[in-house]
């Protein structure tokens, strides 16, 4: 996969540097906050450097001399430093945290905005779950980089440089003595980093295997049980579990060695300071206060160094995530509005023509072959065909979710590829088989398009779609919240809502892929009637699942294996006794019996009231 280059060390370095540069660009819009954070960091570091120096002053000026006058000054200075540190550290944490959050915000908007533009075909290849990971988990991994990584590396460096400067200033000889241990620290850190990283990778590898095995065993537990494989599955799992434990035991060694080693090196530094510094103190070339301050400074020396090596892990995780995110952002949408729209086509009459259209989702596997037909304004067209005939593909192409491979589709003679996407799609009202409801109110779900209708329009649409009676029964009516994708609504109710949505959108052309859901007969009648109102006087292109829809159409196009094979009104096609006749027998004949039963039962239900 795309992570492969990371394993190649020299290549990886250059590659990581490029990724990092690109990531750092996200700091640019927040340069004011970054400046504040940097200033706070420098200020805070300087104040923290002053603390051991005050101890030195207390020792040299007061403890050794026995003079108390002026001690208040040191105490006051200390209080000022404490207060200043408090404020600056707060400012530092806050501004760094917020920089991280704002960048996350920007990134999420960028990724999400990109997902709104990217080709629908991209969604075919990438499951929604994975795309979600880009917006959530991967972005969060970058948060660590910005909130606690990049900027605090700067803090560690400022701290290190500051300590070195103060030591050199106080006594350059003793400073050099203290610095003598630095190469050893560097060596130990290097050793630790390399081994800990390898050990960490090994552990991650085992965890991935354990997760895969768990996943497989949980989803396939009944297979395991049916074949009485429990013992062997357990043995297999045990092998992974043991490997994981062993890898962890191995990695403990590096941690268990590293921290004591750093402490030992620190102790060597302190010992050296006492040995040389003590001698110089006795000679009188170094004050006792300076000696104590040196010891305190040298102890603060090692924290930033081990911190720096920990930042490296954060960087690694962030690189992997940013690689995935940029991979998505770098996939350009290929279906875009034309750069220069020809004279705005206006609303026109809306004559749709398919001219020798060929299309394949993949390679040469053509789903539509040389399809040509015209839909006159106001004409109602039914599309019939067996599974795999290419019916849904027609809709996908007409709304430009995909572009044709050969031939063209035109509206009023204008190729749809020359019409801005929003203007093109504005013409169509789409009703899909799988009614998609969004969380929000019923009203939001009806007034769905950008030109969200007035209350009256929403109400009118709901009335016309026969949705009002059930909506009014919901607590809150139009303002009732739609639970998780309409889980509380019946299939029939969802269907009626989708009709209302299409009506409120008031499209020039209605595109239907309505479902033959299992609904009770009363709802079936409602749906049928609503559908009639929906298509009345409107150009309609309907994938005909319902017998009533088929019959009412002006013309039916019969597709078979990607080709347009028959065309004409219901009666004529039936009379031909060709493909359509077979399809009719297969798909619609049963409905005839059912709808006869339905109208019969309705008549029965009505009669007592009349009588």
């Amino acid at each position, binding site marked *: 996969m795309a992570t492969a280059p990371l394993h190649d060390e020299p290549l990886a370095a250059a590659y990581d540097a490029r990724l990092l540069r690109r990531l750092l660009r996200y700091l640019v819009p927040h340069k004011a906050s970054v400046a504040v954070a940097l200033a706070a960091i420098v200020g805070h570091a300087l104040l923290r450097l002053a603390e051991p120096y005050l101890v030195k002053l*207390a020792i040299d000026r*007061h403890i050794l001399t026995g003079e*108390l006058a002026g001690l208040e000054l040191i*105490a006051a200075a*200390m209080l000022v430093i*404490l207060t200043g*540190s408090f404020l600056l550290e707060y400012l530092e*944490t*806050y501004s760094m*945290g*917020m920089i991280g959050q704002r960048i996350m*915000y920007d990134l999420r908007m960028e990724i999400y905005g990109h997902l*709104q533009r990217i080709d629908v075909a991209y969604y075919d290849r990438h499951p*929604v779950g994975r*795309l*979600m990971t880009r917006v*959530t988990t991967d972005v969060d991994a970058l948060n660590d980089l910005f909130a606690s990584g990049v900027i605090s590396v700067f803090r560690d460096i400022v701290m290190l440089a500051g300590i070195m400067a103060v030591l050199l200033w106080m006594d350059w000889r003793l400073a050099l003595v203290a610095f003598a241990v630095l190469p050893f620290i560097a060596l130990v850190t290097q050793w630790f980093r390399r081994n800990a990283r390898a050990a960490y990778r090994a552990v991650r590898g085992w*965890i991935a295997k354990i997760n*895969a095995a*768990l*996943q*497989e*065993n*949980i989803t*396939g*537990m009944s297979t395991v*049980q*049916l*074949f*009485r494989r429990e013992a062997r*599955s*357990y043995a297999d799992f045990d092998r992974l*579990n043991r490997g994981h*434990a062993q890898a*962890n*035991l191995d990695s*403990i060694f590096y*941690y*268990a*060695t590293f921290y*004591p080693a750093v402490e*030992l090196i620190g*102790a*060597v530094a302190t*010992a050296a300071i*006492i*040995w040389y510094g*003590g*001698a110089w103190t*006795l000679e009188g070339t170094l004050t*006792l206060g300076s000696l104590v301050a040196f*010891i305190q400074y040298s102890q603060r020396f090692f924290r930033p160094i081990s911190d720096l090596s920990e930042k490296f892990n954060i960087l690694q995780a962030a690189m992997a995530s940013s690689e995935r995110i940029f991979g998505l952002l770098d996939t350009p949408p290929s279906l875009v509005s034309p750069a220069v729209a020809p004279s705005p086509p206006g609303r026109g009459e809306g004559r749709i023509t398919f001219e020798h259209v060929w299309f394949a989702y993949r390679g040469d596997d053509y789903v539509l072959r040389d399809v040509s037909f015209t839909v006159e304004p106001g004409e109602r067209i039914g599309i019939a065909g067996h599974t795999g005939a290419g019916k849904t593909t027609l809709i996908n192409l007409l*709304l430009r979710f995909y572009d044709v491979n050969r031939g063209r589709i035109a509206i009023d003679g204008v190729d749809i590829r020359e019409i801005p996407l929003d203007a093109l*799609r504005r013409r169509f009202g*789409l009703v899909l088989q799988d009614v*998609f409801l969004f969380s929000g109110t019923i009203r939001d779900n009806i007034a*769905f*398009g*950008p030109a969200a209708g007035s209350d009256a329009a929403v109400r009118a649409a709901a009335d016309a779609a026969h949705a009002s009676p059930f909506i009014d029964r919901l607590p809150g009516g139009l303002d009732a919240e739609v639970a998780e994708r309409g889980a509380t609504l019946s299939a029939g109710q969802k269907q009626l809502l989708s009709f209302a949505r299409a009506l409120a959108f008031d499209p020039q052309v209605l595109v239907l892929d309505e479902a033959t859901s299992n609904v009770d007969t009363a709802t079936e009648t409602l749906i049928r009637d609503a559908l009639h109102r929906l298509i009345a006087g409107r150009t309609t292109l309907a994938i005909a699942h319902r017998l009533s829809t088929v019959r009412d159409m002006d013309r039916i196009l019969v597709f078979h294996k990607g080709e347009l094979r028959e065309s004409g009104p219901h009666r004529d096609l039936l009379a031909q006794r060709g493909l359509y006749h*077979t399809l009719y027998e297969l798909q619609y004949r049963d409905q005839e019996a059912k709808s006869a039963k339905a109208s019969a039962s309705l008549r029965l239900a009505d009669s007592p009231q009349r009588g």
Partner: protein
Amino acid sequence: MRLPLNPAAWRLLPYVARYRARFAAGSVFLLLATAIQLVSPWVLKLAIDDLTAGVTQAKLGLYAGALVAIAALGGVCRFWMRRIIIGASRLIEYDLRGHFFARLQRLDLAYFQRNRTGDLMSRATNDLSAVRMMVGPALMYSASTSIVFVVAVALMLSISAWLTLIVLLPLPLVSVAVRRFGDAIYHRSERIQAQLARLSAIAQEALAGVRVVRAYGREPAELERFEAANREYVARSRAVIMIQGLFFPSLAFCLGLSALVVLWAGTREVVAGRMTAGDFVAFNAYLTMLAWPMIAFGWVTSMLQRGMAAWQRMLAVSDAEPGVRDPPPHAARLPVGGVRGRVELRDLSFAYNGEPVLQGVSAVVEPGQMLALVGPTGSGKSTLVNLLPRLFDPPPGAVFVDGVDVRQLPLAVLRGAIGYVPQEPLLFSATVAENVAFGAAENGRRDDEAGGDNGDGAAGAVESAVALACLDADVARFPDGLATTVGERGLTLSGGQQQRVALARALLADPRILILDDALSAVDTRTEEAILARLRGVMRERTSIVVSHRISTVRGADQILVLDRGRVVERGTHDELLARGGLYADLDRQQRLEAELEEA
């Protein structure tokens, strides 16, 4: 702490007790390491005192050497402390994970349908690691920090009692503050998590419904919705950052105040002659050492809390009683003379989640016969065949094999007698051969007379099973033949190939009863006919129950049951049912038409 009162905590004890020797050794090193660490400020004190009084270079060398020696000795102890205690926690993790897995293996299908895979996985991974943090690092740090605290305070008291008391005054406050901050951060973080869930839900919706969104030109509205949620997310994160940002500065401030007191009052003490300069320096050093226990206390308590919550979640799975269990030994029965494969359903009714799925189904299938189940989706066919191997438990007195209620047969005997091929088989990430031989070794192990599974015999068996399932031609085209890895991390097989692997897998186990649950639905009709032809011999020797949508599959059955909404609505042979002109005849007509369309 209230933790030991928690009954769940006691159940962790056996896991810990197993490594008591390690923990004992680890504690010794912990004690040594901590004690040694506390000596070095004292050495510093002696050195400073000597320096103010005048000292020889040799004595300085002694102190310097002592410091290095202390660090080296302390380092060695620390090394073993970490290795032993953290190592033990890894071993406990290993035990816990193994036991958890074994418990999962006992649970039934209904349990896995009720509980999402992701949730169970999270318990075996995230929760487990929280439990490990609790028994390893959390225990280690709390032990070492409490020792540091007690000893450091004692040493400070010995230097100057009243200075110690003044310095310690703000410390309880620090601990309380750590707890308070921790709670506040936790609660506010929960609000972030909730908002993240909302943000994800919005994105999930819009991404899943991308076609509708685009068709209605709703992209700007969706972006707006997402932006609002995103903004709220940042606002909630800000609430956490504000309080988190206060956390460390406040701690530093409190500890700084103590340091200020030492600086001011300590200096006066030294000047007054009640303390030496060395005391002053050592006192400062001990004070720095106290900072960590203060912080660690809050950190460790939150780790213990998280660990206990995680442990309880794991226990919930471990304690789940399997719905399908082996009969108790006294109630277990075996058919006389081994399983022959006579299957009988007696007025079988079954409800799932309160919904009746099967009602009053009766049938008898003699060994060597084939029973076919036909009917629309949701008519209960699959449920019926799931009851036979007890993937779900049938009511008592309803399902019999050779006259014995399946609930009284030991599960191993029952399932060993049944070869079940599901519609959507699950193949494992292993080679084709391993997948086919999935159940073979178990049978080999049990049926000793089968002559052990020596390599050649096993390979031959796999090959003939593959051939029976008409998979041989496909396998020949795979890059490594039978040794090709399939599944998630290998070659992706077509639905039909997967089904045929599953068929071969079931055939290899040599079952008395063969169940095909719409098991050839993804195989094209021609291949299916070939498979059925090859299977004919195999099926003659056993009982077979076949669920199918295809008339072509079931037409040769000795008996066909047509199910509709859980009831048997028609029953008979193919010819009898066609003659009746009911549901079955309709289905037959439709499939003829479809075949006709295919040809067109």
